[in-house]
């Protein structure tokens, strides 16, 4: 159960992050978002 809640939280934040990267107009801000996104994707896929 805890793992499902955890997955939902990470998924929610990941979707927001992707949405931010798509809307953002400045390249360097997009790149900063991608650096954070990698961590979220690895957590989402439970690569641990």
């Amino acid at each position, binding site marked *: 159960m805890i793992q499902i809640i955890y997955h939902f939280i990470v998924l929610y934040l990941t979707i927001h992050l992707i949405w931010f990267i*798509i809307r*953002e107009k400045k390249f360097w801000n997009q*790149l900063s*978002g*991608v650096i954070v996104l*990698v961590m979220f994707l690895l957590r989402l896929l439970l690569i641990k």
Partner: protein
Amino acid sequence: MKRHHITALLLLLLAALICYYSGRNFLKMHEEEAVYPSSHLTTKKRLSDYFPGLKNSPGDSSVYIFEGQKEGGTLLILGGTHPNEPAGFITAILLVENIEVKQGRVIIVPRANNSGFMHSDPQEGNPQRYSLGTPSGSRWFRYGSRLTNPIHQWPDPVLYVNPAGQKLSGTESRNLNRSYPGRKHGSLTEKIAYAIMRLIDEEKTDLAVDLHEAAPEYPVINAIVFHENSAELAVITLMTLQMEGVDIRLEASPRNLRGLSHREWGDFSKTHAILLETANTSHGRLKGKPSATLIINGKDKNYQKAAQLGRLFVPFDEDGIPLKQRVSRHLASLRALVSGLYELYPDLLIQIQNVPSPTDVEQAGVGAFLRPPK
């Protein structure tokens, strides 16, 4: 599509590629190296056969049993209690791949803490693997962590009170060699310890040897650590080794240091409990850059300097302390222990053939005695 949408898509693709590459590399730590047991292997079991609570858990591990045709003593050899101490692990693999037991029984667990093999110590920069060349092709082996993978056992308590009642720092709750005699309903590490205690009892083990390594600056090094019940055996072994020219010392297992194999195996079972230590450069705090080469050749300029300053407990020169020498030392000690056991208890004879000779291992290297990859 606007320009920033195109850059966003390209960057998302880059993120996916980074995830794929790093994820694949990271998950390689979960792969287990191939082991090719000798044709004289009698049975292969799992630790979970002794304690079903470990079944399908990352703590379950292979147990190789070699049985002779005649009755005799039973020897248990544990490698990989600490997966960052490769000489113990490789000695166990070397024996699994070569030996034939004519009398008595030999039980070998190369990956005692299987979970510890599935991650690396953070911030240490240790290599994930090292390779050893066999006569036809090289084989890789995992270099793991001293402790159980925190993914498998989390969080660490602030203070760990182990099954024997000793208070230790929280991270030690993931140290197999602080968790004996284990707990049936405890943490993963305690369950592994419990399974090993069950194995010792059920297989009526007469002699149990835990193979370790330690940093060259650590005082208990090139040593036989013994439980008081095994004092006589340890002294005979010491004399045999010293007559063979092996520089080794004895260390009595302290009665007030609880949770360790040499203490709890002796206290909670009828076995003769012994722990062997060799000096591992790649394990030490004074080393330079960690690498697979350092694990194998054991050469390090910092340690040379430390030896010149008299800071080490073992001699250390430009030749370092290579893996082949450490494995050879473990093999010589095991041979002397088996012969000592027979000297003390003639009905506990364990006759093992095809054990690579320590001298040959030191000269030809470990790989010469490993089976080629299939």
